[in-house]
Protein backbone atom coordinates (compact mmCIF):
# COMPACT_ATOMS: atom_id res chain seq x y z
CA UNK A 1 0.00 0.00 0.00
CA UNK A 2 2.63 2.53 1.05
CA UNK A 3 6.17 1.86 -0.06
CA UNK A 4 8.95 4.27 0.83
CA UNK A 5 12.31 3.63 -0.75
CA UNK A 6 15.65 5.40 -0.50
CA UNK A 7 14.10 8.51 0.96
CA UNK A 8 16.55 11.19 1.89
CA UNK A 9 15.96 14.71 3.12
CA UNK A 10 18.37 17.08 4.75
CA UNK A 11 17.13 20.14 6.61
CA UNK A 12 20.44 21.75 7.49
CA UNK A 13 20.92 22.15 11.22
CA UNK A 14 17.63 20.45 11.99
CA UNK A 15 17.25 17.03 10.58
CA UNK A 16 18.69 14.39 8.34
CA UNK A 17 15.98 11.97 7.36
CA UNK A 18 16.89 8.64 5.78
CA UNK A 19 14.28 5.97 5.21
CA UNK A 20 15.79 3.17 3.18
CA UNK A 21 12.81 0.93 3.09
CA UNK A 22 9.45 1.16 4.77
CA UNK A 23 6.30 -0.68 3.78
CA UNK A 24 2.99 -0.10 5.42
CA UNK A 25 0.30 -2.61 4.48
CA UNK A 26 -3.17 -1.41 3.55
CA UNK A 27 -5.94 -1.23 6.10
CA UNK A 28 -3.81 -1.03 9.21
CA UNK A 29 -3.18 1.63 11.77
CA UNK A 30 0.51 2.42 11.74
CA UNK A 31 1.97 4.44 14.58
CA UNK A 32 5.20 6.29 14.08
CA UNK A 33 6.74 6.97 17.44
CA UNK A 34 9.89 8.75 18.41
CA UNK A 35 11.20 11.65 20.41
CA UNK A 36 10.97 15.32 19.40
CA UNK A 37 12.92 16.14 16.29
CA UNK A 38 13.15 12.51 15.24
CA UNK A 39 11.68 13.26 11.83
CA UNK A 40 8.25 11.72 12.27
CA UNK A 41 6.28 14.85 11.42
CA UNK A 42 8.62 15.48 8.52
CA UNK A 43 7.86 12.03 7.19
CA UNK A 44 4.16 12.79 7.50
CA UNK A 45 4.67 16.10 5.71
CA UNK A 46 6.35 14.23 2.87
CA UNK A 47 3.39 11.86 2.66
CA UNK A 48 0.99 14.82 2.58
CA UNK A 49 3.14 16.62 0.00
CA UNK A 50 3.91 19.59 2.22
CA UNK A 51 7.60 18.75 2.15
CA UNK A 52 9.66 17.61 -0.78
CA UNK A 53 12.46 15.15 -0.06
CA UNK A 54 15.85 15.41 -1.76
CA UNK A 55 15.79 11.82 -3.01
CA UNK A 56 13.77 8.67 -3.02
CA UNK A 57 10.33 7.47 -3.91
CA UNK A 58 7.10 7.27 -2.00
CA UNK A 59 4.54 4.99 -3.53
CA UNK A 60 0.94 5.40 -2.41
CA UNK A 61 -2.11 3.96 -4.19
CA UNK A 62 0.33 2.45 -6.66
CA UNK A 63 1.91 5.70 -7.77
CA UNK A 64 5.00 7.60 -6.78
CA UNK A 65 3.42 10.68 -5.19
CA UNK A 66 6.61 12.70 -5.40
CA UNK A 67 6.34 13.07 -9.16
CA UNK A 68 2.62 13.80 -9.44
CA UNK A 69 1.88 16.60 -11.88
CA UNK A 70 -1.36 17.49 -10.20
CA UNK A 71 -1.34 16.62 -6.51
CA UNK A 72 -4.99 17.54 -5.96
CA UNK A 73 -6.58 14.15 -6.72
CA UNK A 74 -4.08 12.49 -4.38
CA UNK A 75 -4.71 15.09 -1.69
CA UNK A 76 -8.40 14.51 -1.98
CA UNK A 77 -8.00 10.80 -1.23
CA UNK A 78 -5.97 11.60 1.85
CA UNK A 79 -6.91 13.32 5.09
CA UNK A 80 -4.28 15.06 7.12
CA UNK A 81 -4.99 16.23 10.66
CA UNK A 82 -2.52 18.68 12.09
CA UNK A 83 -1.54 18.53 15.72
CA UNK A 84 -3.22 21.87 16.30
CA UNK A 85 -6.23 21.71 14.04
CA UNK A 86 -7.54 24.96 12.64
CA UNK A 87 -11.27 25.31 12.65
CA UNK A 88 -12.71 28.10 10.57
CA UNK A 89 -14.86 30.98 11.78
CA UNK A 90 -18.05 29.12 11.14
CA UNK A 91 -20.41 26.63 12.68
CA UNK A 92 -19.34 23.12 13.57
CA UNK A 93 -21.61 21.79 10.85
CA UNK A 94 -20.08 24.00 8.19
CA UNK A 95 -16.58 23.13 9.31
CA UNK A 96 -17.28 19.44 8.95
CA UNK A 97 -19.06 19.79 5.63
CA UNK A 98 -16.33 22.00 4.17
CA UNK A 99 -14.20 19.17 2.69
CA UNK A 100 -17.34 17.82 1.03
CA UNK A 101 -18.11 21.24 -0.42
CA UNK A 102 -14.53 21.52 -1.67
CA UNK A 103 -14.94 18.22 -3.49
CA UNK A 104 -18.38 19.02 -4.81
CA UNK A 105 -19.96 16.20 -2.80
CA UNK A 106 -23.55 16.89 -1.89
CA UNK A 107 -24.21 13.95 0.39
CA UNK A 108 -25.02 15.78 3.59
CA UNK A 109 -25.94 12.61 5.46
CA UNK A 110 -22.23 12.04 5.90
CA UNK A 111 -21.96 15.12 8.09
CA UNK A 112 -24.71 13.85 10.36
CA UNK A 113 -23.04 10.46 10.39
CA UNK A 114 -19.72 12.00 11.49
CA UNK A 115 -21.41 14.17 14.09
CA UNK A 116 -22.97 11.03 15.53
CA UNK A 117 -19.79 8.95 15.35
CA UNK A 118 -17.80 11.54 17.22
CA UNK A 119 -20.70 12.24 19.58
CA UNK A 120 -20.88 15.93 18.75
CA UNK A 121 -24.34 16.13 17.18
CA UNK A 122 -25.53 18.66 19.79
CA UNK A 123 -22.69 21.02 18.83
CA UNK A 124 -23.70 21.11 15.18
CA UNK A 125 -24.94 24.70 15.11
CA UNK A 126 -22.35 26.16 17.45
CA UNK A 127 -19.55 28.48 16.40
CA UNK A 128 -16.53 26.25 16.03
CA UNK A 129 -14.20 28.63 17.79
CA UNK A 130 -16.24 28.52 20.99
CA UNK A 131 -15.53 24.83 21.54
CA UNK A 132 -13.40 23.25 24.22
CA UNK A 133 -10.12 21.56 23.37
CA UNK A 134 -11.58 18.09 23.28
CA UNK A 135 -14.54 19.16 21.18
CA UNK A 136 -12.22 20.97 18.79
CA UNK A 137 -10.27 17.78 18.21
CA UNK A 138 -13.43 15.82 17.68
CA UNK A 139 -14.60 18.32 15.08
CA UNK A 140 -11.20 18.28 13.39
CA UNK A 141 -11.21 14.49 13.19
CA UNK A 142 -14.81 14.41 11.99
CA UNK A 143 -13.89 16.95 9.32
CA UNK A 144 -10.96 14.78 8.23
CA UNK A 145 -12.97 11.59 8.06
CA UNK A 146 -16.15 12.94 6.48
CA UNK A 147 -14.68 12.55 2.99
CA UNK A 148 -14.11 8.81 3.62
CA UNK A 149 -10.40 9.12 2.89
CA UNK A 150 -8.37 6.13 1.77
CA UNK A 151 -5.43 7.25 3.85
CA UNK A 152 -5.52 9.16 7.11
CA UNK A 153 -2.47 11.00 8.39
CA UNK A 154 -2.61 12.11 11.99
CA UNK A 155 0.16 14.35 13.26
CA UNK A 156 0.17 14.09 17.04
CA UNK A 157 -3.58 14.60 17.13
CA UNK A 158 -3.84 14.43 20.90
CA UNK A 159 -0.64 16.10 22.02
CA UNK A 160 -2.37 19.20 23.28
CA UNK A 161 -5.23 17.35 24.91
CA UNK A 162 -5.89 16.87 28.59
CA UNK A 163 -5.86 13.20 29.67
CA UNK A 164 -9.56 13.16 30.48
CA UNK A 165 -10.51 14.15 26.92
CA UNK A 166 -7.84 12.01 25.45
CA UNK A 167 -8.87 8.57 26.61
CA UNK A 168 -12.48 9.01 25.52
CA UNK A 169 -11.41 10.34 22.14
CA UNK A 170 -8.84 7.58 21.69
CA UNK A 171 -11.53 4.98 22.22
CA UNK A 172 -13.90 6.63 19.77
CA UNK A 173 -11.19 7.08 17.19
CA UNK A 174 -10.12 3.46 17.49
CA UNK A 175 -13.68 2.30 17.05
CA UNK A 176 -14.20 4.48 13.99
CA UNK A 177 -10.91 3.81 12.24
CA UNK A 178 -10.81 0.09 12.94
CA UNK A 179 -14.45 -0.17 11.99
CA UNK A 180 -13.73 1.24 8.54
CA UNK A 181 -10.34 -0.41 8.01
CA UNK A 182 -8.80 2.77 6.63
CA UNK A 183 -5.06 2.88 6.37
CA UNK A 184 -3.93 5.34 9.01
CA UNK A 185 -0.55 6.71 9.83
CA UNK A 186 -0.38 8.22 13.18
CA UNK A 187 2.53 10.17 14.64
CA UNK A 188 2.98 10.42 18.36
CA UNK A 189 5.45 10.73 21.18
CA UNK A 190 3.14 8.91 23.50
CA UNK A 191 3.78 5.16 23.63
CA UNK A 192 0.51 4.49 25.37
CA UNK A 193 -1.45 6.01 22.50
CA UNK A 194 0.54 3.92 20.08
CA UNK A 195 0.10 0.79 22.15
CA UNK A 196 -3.61 1.36 22.36
CA UNK A 197 -4.27 2.27 18.73
CA UNK A 198 -1.65 0.76 16.51
CA UNK A 199 -1.53 -2.49 14.57
CA UNK A 200 2.06 -1.79 13.66
CA UNK A 201 4.59 0.54 15.21
CA UNK A 202 7.61 2.21 13.68
CA UNK A 203 10.19 3.69 16.00
CA UNK A 204 12.05 6.61 14.50
CA UNK A 205 14.94 8.51 15.98
CA UNK A 206 17.47 10.88 14.51
CA UNK A 207 15.85 10.57 11.10
CA UNK A 208 16.15 6.79 10.93
CA UNK A 209 13.56 4.10 11.38
CA UNK A 210 14.97 1.83 14.06
CA UNK A 211 12.33 -0.85 14.35
CA UNK A 212 9.06 -1.75 12.75
CA UNK A 213 7.03 -4.36 14.59
CA UNK A 214 3.71 -5.02 16.22
CA UNK A 215 3.16 -3.15 19.49
CA UNK A 216 3.81 -6.12 21.79
CA UNK A 217 7.11 -6.78 20.10
CA UNK A 218 8.27 -3.21 20.15
CA UNK A 219 7.50 -2.77 23.79
CA UNK A 220 8.61 -6.16 25.00
CA UNK A 221 11.46 -6.78 22.59
CA UNK A 222 13.12 -3.54 21.50
CA UNK A 223 15.72 -4.12 18.87
CA UNK A 224 18.34 -1.72 20.23
CA UNK A 225 19.26 0.35 23.25
CA UNK A 226 17.90 3.46 21.53
CA UNK A 227 14.52 1.88 21.05
CA UNK A 228 14.58 0.54 24.59
CA UNK A 229 15.41 4.00 25.89
CA UNK A 230 12.58 5.57 23.97
CA UNK A 231 9.90 3.07 24.84
CA UNK A 232 10.51 3.61 28.52
CA UNK A 233 12.77 0.75 29.53
CA UNK A 234 14.75 2.32 32.31
CA UNK A 235 16.65 -0.68 33.52
CA UNK A 236 19.33 -1.58 30.99
CA UNK A 237 22.23 -3.64 32.25
CA UNK A 238 25.26 -4.87 30.34
CA UNK A 239 26.03 -8.54 30.59
CA UNK A 240 27.15 -11.72 28.85
CA UNK A 241 25.29 -14.95 28.31
CA UNK A 242 27.28 -17.53 30.19
CA UNK A 243 25.02 -20.55 30.07
CA UNK A 244 21.93 -21.70 28.25
CA UNK A 245 19.28 -24.10 29.46
CA UNK A 246 16.70 -24.62 26.75
CA UNK A 247 15.32 -21.12 26.21
CA UNK A 248 16.55 -19.85 29.56
CA UNK A 249 19.73 -17.81 29.36
CA UNK A 250 21.92 -17.19 32.34
CA UNK A 251 23.41 -13.75 32.01
CA UNK A 252 26.38 -12.58 34.06
CA UNK A 253 26.31 -8.90 34.83
CA UNK A 254 28.79 -6.75 36.74
CA UNK A 255 27.66 -5.41 40.07
CA UNK A 256 29.48 -3.06 42.37
CA UNK A 257 28.23 -2.64 45.92
CA UNK A 258 29.65 -0.68 48.76
CA UNK A 259 28.39 -2.55 51.80
CA UNK A 260 27.09 -5.96 51.15
CA UNK A 261 27.66 -8.55 48.53
CA UNK A 262 25.18 -9.10 45.82
CA UNK A 263 23.34 -12.20 46.67
CA UNK A 264 21.02 -14.16 44.58
CA UNK A 265 18.05 -15.22 46.59
CA UNK A 266 16.79 -18.18 44.83
CA UNK A 267 14.79 -20.84 46.54
CA UNK A 268 16.92 -21.90 49.55
CA UNK A 269 15.06 -25.20 49.70
CA UNK A 270 17.20 -26.28 46.77
CA UNK A 271 14.63 -26.18 44.05
CA UNK A 272 17.23 -24.81 41.66
CA UNK A 273 20.10 -26.69 40.19
CA UNK A 274 23.54 -26.83 41.72
CA UNK A 275 25.40 -25.13 38.89
CA UNK A 276 23.71 -21.93 39.65
CA UNK A 277 24.63 -22.15 43.33
CA UNK A 278 28.25 -22.80 42.49
CA UNK A 279 28.46 -19.83 40.24
CA UNK A 280 27.01 -17.66 42.95
CA UNK A 281 29.62 -18.74 45.44
CA UNK A 282 32.34 -17.87 42.99
CA UNK A 283 31.20 -14.37 42.27
CA UNK A 284 30.63 -13.54 45.89
CA UNK A 285 34.29 -13.44 46.64
CA UNK A 286 35.11 -10.43 44.46
CA UNK A 287 34.72 -6.73 45.10
CA UNK A 288 33.41 -6.31 41.59
CA UNK A 289 31.01 -9.12 41.45
CA UNK A 290 29.19 -10.98 38.80
CA UNK A 291 25.53 -11.47 39.32
CA UNK A 292 23.59 -13.98 37.36
CA UNK A 293 20.21 -13.16 35.86
CA UNK A 294 17.85 -15.59 34.28
CA UNK A 295 16.19 -14.42 31.14
CA UNK A 296 14.15 -16.24 28.52
CA UNK A 297 15.79 -15.46 25.18
CA UNK A 298 17.15 -17.06 22.03
CA UNK A 299 20.67 -15.68 22.51
CA UNK A 300 23.59 -18.08 22.42
CA UNK A 301 26.30 -18.57 25.02
CA UNK A 302 29.04 -15.97 24.82
CA UNK A 303 26.76 -13.30 23.36
CA UNK A 304 27.29 -9.86 24.86
CA UNK A 305 23.87 -8.49 25.68
CA UNK A 306 21.86 -5.73 27.38
CA UNK A 307 19.31 -6.91 29.88
CA UNK A 308 16.20 -4.76 29.63
CA UNK A 309 13.42 -4.71 32.16
CA UNK A 310 10.41 -2.45 32.08
CA UNK A 311 9.89 -0.57 35.35
CA UNK A 312 6.37 -1.91 35.77
CA UNK A 313 7.74 -5.47 35.64
CA UNK A 314 9.93 -5.01 38.70
CA UNK A 315 8.37 -5.68 42.05
CA UNK A 316 9.68 -4.43 45.37
CA UNK A 317 9.30 -6.12 48.71
CA UNK A 318 10.76 -5.58 52.14
CA UNK A 319 11.48 -9.26 52.75
CA UNK A 320 12.78 -11.94 50.42
CA UNK A 321 9.65 -13.47 48.97
CA UNK A 322 8.91 -16.84 47.65
CA UNK A 323 7.24 -16.35 44.37
CA UNK A 324 7.65 -17.50 40.84
CA UNK A 325 10.03 -14.66 39.95
CA UNK A 326 13.42 -16.05 39.11
CA UNK A 327 15.47 -12.95 39.73
CA UNK A 328 15.70 -11.48 43.20
CA UNK A 329 18.18 -8.85 44.30
CA UNK A 330 18.95 -7.02 47.47
CA UNK A 331 18.73 -3.29 46.76
CA UNK A 332 19.04 0.12 48.31
CA UNK A 333 16.50 2.82 47.50
CA UNK A 334 18.45 5.72 46.05
CA UNK A 335 15.68 8.03 44.99
CA UNK A 336 11.89 8.28 44.75
CA UNK A 337 10.08 10.75 42.52
CA UNK A 338 6.41 11.06 41.62
CA UNK A 339 5.86 9.75 38.08
CA UNK A 340 2.37 10.23 36.76
CA UNK A 341 0.05 8.40 39.12
CA UNK A 342 2.91 6.30 40.49
CA UNK A 343 6.34 6.77 41.95
CA UNK A 344 9.52 6.06 40.11
CA UNK A 345 12.06 4.42 42.38
CA UNK A 346 15.76 4.21 41.59
CA UNK A 347 17.34 1.14 43.14
CA UNK A 348 20.98 0.26 43.60
CA UNK A 349 21.47 -3.50 43.27
CA UNK A 350 25.08 -3.10 42.35
CA UNK A 351 23.63 -2.02 39.04
CA UNK A 352 20.83 0.44 38.54
CA UNK A 353 17.28 -0.75 38.45
CA UNK A 354 14.20 1.41 38.08
CA UNK A 355 10.77 0.38 39.29
CA UNK A 356 7.30 1.92 39.36
CA UNK A 357 5.43 1.65 42.61
CA UNK A 358 2.01 2.98 43.53
CA UNK A 359 1.62 5.47 46.34
CA UNK A 360 -0.38 2.85 48.15
CA UNK A 361 2.46 0.35 48.07
CA UNK A 362 4.92 2.95 49.27
CA UNK A 363 2.72 3.63 52.26
CA UNK A 364 2.15 -0.07 52.94
CA UNK A 365 5.80 -1.03 52.70
CA UNK A 366 6.91 2.25 54.34
CA UNK A 367 9.51 2.77 51.66
CA UNK A 368 12.09 5.52 52.12
CA UNK A 369 15.33 6.58 50.54
CA UNK A 370 18.28 4.59 51.91
CA UNK A 371 16.13 1.63 52.88
CA UNK A 372 17.18 -1.91 52.05
CA UNK A 373 14.62 -3.75 49.98
CA UNK A 374 14.37 -6.66 47.57
CA UNK A 375 13.71 -6.26 43.88
CA UNK A 376 12.43 -9.07 41.70
CA UNK A 377 11.47 -9.76 38.10
CA UNK A 378 10.48 -12.81 36.13
CA UNK A 379 12.69 -14.50 33.61
CA UNK A 380 10.07 -13.76 30.97
CA UNK A 381 9.76 -10.09 31.96
CA UNK A 382 13.26 -9.23 30.81
CA UNK A 383 14.50 -8.91 27.27
CA UNK A 384 17.99 -9.30 25.89
CA UNK A 385 19.35 -6.95 23.26
CA UNK A 386 22.43 -8.14 21.42
CA UNK A 387 25.36 -5.79 21.80
Amino acid at each position, binding site marked *: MIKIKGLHLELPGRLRLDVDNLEIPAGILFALIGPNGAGKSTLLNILSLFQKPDKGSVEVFGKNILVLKNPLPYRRRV*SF*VLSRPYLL*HDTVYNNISLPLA*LRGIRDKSRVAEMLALFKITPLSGQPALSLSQGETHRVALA*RALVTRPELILLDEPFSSLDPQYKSALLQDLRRIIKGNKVTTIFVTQDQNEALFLADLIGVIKGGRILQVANPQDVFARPISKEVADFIGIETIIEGTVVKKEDSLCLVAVDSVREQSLATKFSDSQGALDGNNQGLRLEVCSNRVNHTIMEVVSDCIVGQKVLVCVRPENITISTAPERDSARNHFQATIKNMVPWGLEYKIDLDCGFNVVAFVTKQSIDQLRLAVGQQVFAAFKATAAHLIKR
Partner: protein
Amino acid sequence: MLYIFAGFKKALFLIFHLNAEILEIIRLSLLVSMVATGMAIAIGLPLGSIIALKRFRWRKLVIALINTTMGLPPVVVGLMVSLFLFRNGPLGFLGWLYTAKGMILAQVIIATPIITGLCLASVQSVDPKLYQQVIALGANRWQALLIVFKEIKLSLLAAIVAGFGSIISEVGAVMMVGGNIKGQTRVLTTATVLETNMGNFDVAIALGLILFLLSFMVNAALTLIQQKKYD
Protein backbone atom coordinates in the same frame (compact mmCIF):
# COMPACT_ATOMS: atom_id res chain seq x y z
CA MET B 1 -21.57 82.14 12.90
CA LEU B 2 -24.98 82.84 11.51
CA TYR B 3 -24.10 81.90 7.97
CA ILE B 4 -22.86 78.50 9.08
CA PHE B 5 -26.25 77.88 10.59
CA ALA B 6 -28.00 79.29 7.55
CA GLY B 7 -25.74 77.19 5.38
CA PHE B 8 -26.73 74.01 7.18
CA LYS B 9 -30.40 74.94 7.02
CA LYS B 10 -30.21 75.50 3.29
CA ALA B 11 -28.15 72.34 2.96
CA LEU B 12 -30.83 70.27 4.67
CA PHE B 13 -33.44 71.85 2.44
CA LEU B 14 -31.39 70.93 -0.62
CA ILE B 15 -30.92 67.38 0.58
CA PHE B 16 -34.66 66.92 0.97
CA HIS B 17 -35.35 68.53 -2.38
CA LEU B 18 -32.65 66.94 -4.49
CA ASN B 19 -32.69 68.40 -7.97
CA ALA B 20 -31.73 66.56 -11.10
CA GLU B 21 -28.31 68.16 -11.21
CA ILE B 22 -27.35 67.06 -7.72
CA LEU B 23 -28.80 63.63 -8.33
CA GLU B 24 -26.64 63.32 -11.42
CA ILE B 25 -23.59 64.35 -9.40
CA ILE B 26 -24.40 61.76 -6.74
CA ARG B 27 -24.97 59.08 -9.34
CA LEU B 28 -21.66 59.80 -11.00
CA SER B 29 -19.77 59.96 -7.72
CA LEU B 30 -21.09 56.59 -6.67
CA LEU B 31 -20.63 55.03 -10.08
CA VAL B 32 -17.05 56.19 -10.47
CA SER B 33 -15.95 55.34 -6.95
CA MET B 34 -17.73 52.00 -6.79
CA VAL B 35 -16.48 50.86 -10.15
CA ALA B 36 -12.98 51.99 -9.23
CA THR B 37 -13.22 50.21 -5.88
CA GLY B 38 -14.52 47.07 -7.60
CA MET B 39 -11.60 47.10 -10.01
CA ALA B 40 -9.12 47.87 -7.26
CA ILE B 41 -10.53 44.88 -5.37
CA ALA B 42 -10.27 42.69 -8.45
CA ILE B 43 -6.61 43.66 -8.79
CA GLY B 44 -5.65 44.24 -5.17
CA LEU B 45 -6.96 41.14 -3.46
CA PRO B 46 -5.29 38.58 -5.74
CA LEU B 47 -2.15 40.67 -6.02
CA GLY B 48 -1.90 41.23 -2.27
CA SER B 49 -2.44 37.55 -1.55
CA ILE B 50 0.05 36.41 -4.15
CA ILE B 51 2.70 38.70 -2.72
CA ALA B 52 1.84 37.54 0.78
CA LEU B 53 1.95 33.85 -0.04
CA LYS B 54 4.65 33.53 -2.70
CA ARG B 55 8.35 33.87 -2.19
CA PHE B 56 10.13 35.55 -5.06
CA ARG B 57 13.24 37.53 -5.67
CA TRP B 58 12.36 41.17 -5.21
CA ARG B 59 9.53 40.50 -2.78
CA LYS B 60 10.65 42.86 -0.02
CA LEU B 61 11.28 45.61 -2.50
CA VAL B 62 7.83 45.11 -4.00
CA ILE B 63 6.24 45.26 -0.56
CA ALA B 64 8.12 48.46 0.25
CA LEU B 65 6.97 49.88 -3.08
CA ILE B 66 3.35 49.01 -2.40
CA ASN B 67 3.51 50.49 1.08
CA THR B 68 4.92 53.67 -0.42
CA THR B 69 2.33 53.91 -3.15
CA MET B 70 -0.38 53.49 -0.51
CA GLY B 71 0.42 57.06 0.40
CA LEU B 72 0.64 58.31 -3.15
CA PRO B 73 -0.67 61.89 -3.30
CA PRO B 74 -3.83 61.84 -5.45
CA VAL B 75 -2.82 65.01 -7.27
CA VAL B 76 0.37 63.35 -8.42
CA VAL B 77 -1.69 60.44 -9.70
CA GLY B 78 -4.03 62.92 -11.35
CA LEU B 79 -1.13 64.69 -13.01
CA MET B 80 0.47 61.50 -14.28
CA VAL B 81 -2.81 60.09 -15.54
CA SER B 82 -3.60 63.40 -17.27
CA LEU B 83 -0.21 63.46 -18.94
CA PHE B 84 -0.73 59.96 -20.25
CA LEU B 85 -4.29 60.57 -21.35
CA PHE B 86 -3.68 63.87 -23.16
CA ARG B 87 -4.69 63.34 -26.73
CA ASN B 88 -1.10 63.74 -27.75
CA GLY B 89 0.02 61.60 -24.83
CA PRO B 90 0.89 57.91 -24.95
CA LEU B 91 -2.66 56.83 -24.12
CA GLY B 92 -4.36 59.67 -25.95
CA PHE B 93 -5.94 57.30 -28.45
CA LEU B 94 -8.25 56.06 -25.69
CA GLY B 95 -9.98 59.42 -25.54
CA TRP B 96 -10.41 59.00 -21.80
CA LEU B 97 -9.34 62.41 -20.58
CA TYR B 98 -12.21 64.43 -19.10
CA THR B 99 -14.39 61.33 -18.99
CA ALA B 100 -15.66 59.08 -16.23
CA LYS B 101 -13.36 56.36 -17.55
CA GLY B 102 -10.33 58.55 -16.97
CA MET B 103 -11.51 59.32 -13.45
CA ILE B 104 -12.01 55.64 -12.77
CA LEU B 105 -8.50 54.96 -14.05
CA ALA B 106 -7.03 57.55 -11.70
CA GLN B 107 -9.05 56.26 -8.76
CA VAL B 108 -8.10 52.67 -9.47
CA ILE B 109 -4.46 53.77 -9.36
CA ILE B 110 -5.08 55.46 -6.02
CA ALA B 111 -7.13 52.70 -4.43
CA THR B 112 -5.31 49.62 -5.71
CA PRO B 113 -2.14 50.08 -3.64
CA ILE B 114 -4.24 50.71 -0.55
CA ILE B 115 -6.31 47.58 -1.02
CA THR B 116 -3.28 45.56 -2.10
CA GLY B 117 -1.20 46.71 0.84
CA LEU B 118 -3.90 46.10 3.43
CA CYS B 119 -4.81 42.76 1.89
CA LEU B 120 -1.14 41.81 1.89
CA ALA B 121 -0.88 42.68 5.55
CA SER B 122 -3.99 40.76 6.52
CA VAL B 123 -3.05 37.67 4.54
CA GLN B 124 0.39 37.81 6.12
CA SER B 125 -1.20 38.01 9.53
CA VAL B 126 -2.87 34.66 8.89
CA ASP B 127 -1.11 31.70 10.46
CA PRO B 128 0.58 29.88 7.54
CA LYS B 129 -0.77 26.68 9.06
CA LEU B 130 -4.28 27.80 8.21
CA TYR B 131 -3.42 27.74 4.54
CA GLN B 132 -1.80 24.33 5.03
CA GLN B 133 -4.87 23.09 6.87
CA VAL B 134 -7.18 24.19 4.09
CA ILE B 135 -4.98 22.55 1.46
CA ALA B 136 -4.90 19.43 3.62
CA LEU B 137 -8.68 19.40 3.56
CA GLY B 138 -8.53 19.05 -0.20
CA ALA B 139 -8.91 22.63 -1.37
CA ASN B 140 -7.39 23.68 -4.65
CA ARG B 141 -5.40 26.87 -4.69
CA TRP B 142 -8.32 29.18 -5.37
CA GLN B 143 -10.61 27.49 -2.93
CA ALA B 144 -7.90 27.83 -0.32
CA LEU B 145 -7.52 31.50 -1.09
CA LEU B 146 -11.26 32.06 -0.85
CA ILE B 147 -11.41 30.31 2.49
CA VAL B 148 -8.45 32.29 3.78
CA PHE B 149 -10.22 35.43 2.58
CA LYS B 150 -13.31 34.37 4.43
CA GLU B 151 -11.28 33.91 7.58
CA ILE B 152 -9.88 37.42 7.36
CA LYS B 153 -13.00 39.03 5.98
CA LEU B 154 -12.97 41.69 8.68
CA SER B 155 -9.55 42.96 7.71
CA LEU B 156 -10.37 42.64 4.03
CA LEU B 157 -13.52 44.64 4.58
CA ALA B 158 -11.43 47.27 6.31
CA ALA B 159 -9.15 47.29 3.26
CA ILE B 160 -12.09 47.76 0.93
CA VAL B 161 -13.60 50.48 3.10
CA ALA B 162 -10.24 52.25 3.21
CA GLY B 163 -9.94 52.00 -0.56
CA PHE B 164 -13.45 53.26 -1.18
CA GLY B 165 -13.07 56.01 1.39
CA SER B 166 -9.86 57.21 -0.15
CA ILE B 167 -11.45 57.75 -3.56
CA ILE B 168 -15.02 58.83 -2.86
CA SER B 169 -13.53 61.72 -0.87
CA GLU B 170 -10.71 62.42 -3.26
CA VAL B 171 -10.70 65.71 -5.17
CA GLY B 172 -7.29 66.45 -6.70
CA ALA B 173 -7.08 63.63 -9.20
CA VAL B 174 -10.70 63.65 -10.33
CA MET B 175 -10.49 67.41 -10.77
CA MET B 176 -7.47 67.09 -13.03
CA VAL B 177 -8.46 64.02 -14.96
CA GLY B 178 -12.19 64.60 -15.02
CA GLY B 179 -12.10 68.35 -15.44
CA ASN B 180 -15.20 68.93 -13.29
CA ILE B 181 -17.38 69.20 -16.37
CA LYS B 182 -20.98 69.82 -15.59
CA GLY B 183 -23.15 66.82 -16.31
CA GLN B 184 -20.20 64.69 -17.37
CA THR B 185 -17.46 64.50 -14.82
CA ARG B 186 -18.68 66.62 -11.95
CA VAL B 187 -18.66 64.61 -8.77
CA LEU B 188 -19.47 65.54 -5.18
CA THR B 189 -15.97 66.60 -4.24
CA THR B 190 -15.25 68.72 -7.30
CA ALA B 191 -18.73 70.22 -7.12
CA THR B 192 -18.07 71.12 -3.50
CA VAL B 193 -14.86 72.87 -4.49
CA LEU B 194 -16.64 74.70 -7.27
CA GLU B 195 -19.51 75.84 -5.08
CA THR B 196 -17.04 76.97 -2.46
CA ASN B 197 -15.15 78.99 -5.08
CA MET B 198 -18.41 80.48 -6.21
CA GLY B 199 -19.16 81.51 -2.67
CA ASN B 200 -22.20 79.24 -2.46
CA PHE B 201 -21.28 77.88 0.91
CA ASP B 202 -24.75 76.53 1.56
CA VAL B 203 -24.67 74.34 -1.53
CA ALA B 204 -21.12 73.35 -0.67
CA ILE B 205 -22.22 72.31 2.80
CA ALA B 206 -25.13 70.38 1.33
CA LEU B 207 -22.80 68.54 -1.03
CA GLY B 208 -20.40 67.83 1.81
CA LEU B 209 -23.22 66.44 3.92
CA ILE B 210 -24.43 64.28 1.06
CA LEU B 211 -20.90 62.97 0.59
CA PHE B 212 -20.72 62.15 4.26
CA LEU B 213 -24.11 60.44 4.21
CA LEU B 214 -23.20 58.40 1.14
CA SER B 215 -19.93 57.26 2.64
CA PHE B 216 -21.76 56.38 5.77
CA MET B 217 -24.42 54.40 3.95
CA VAL B 218 -21.94 52.48 1.85
CA ASN B 219 -19.80 51.68 4.86
CA ALA B 220 -22.81 50.74 6.92
CA ALA B 221 -24.04 48.46 4.16
CA LEU B 222 -20.63 46.77 3.90
CA THR B 223 -20.48 46.36 7.65
CA LEU B 224 -23.97 44.91 7.76
CA ILE B 225 -23.18 42.40 5.04
CA GLN B 226 -20.13 41.49 7.03
CA GLN B 227 -21.77 41.10 10.41
CA LYS B 228 -24.97 39.54 9.15
CA LYS B 229 -24.10 35.91 9.15
CA TYR B 230 -21.77 35.30 11.94
CA ASP B 231 -19.28 37.05 14.18
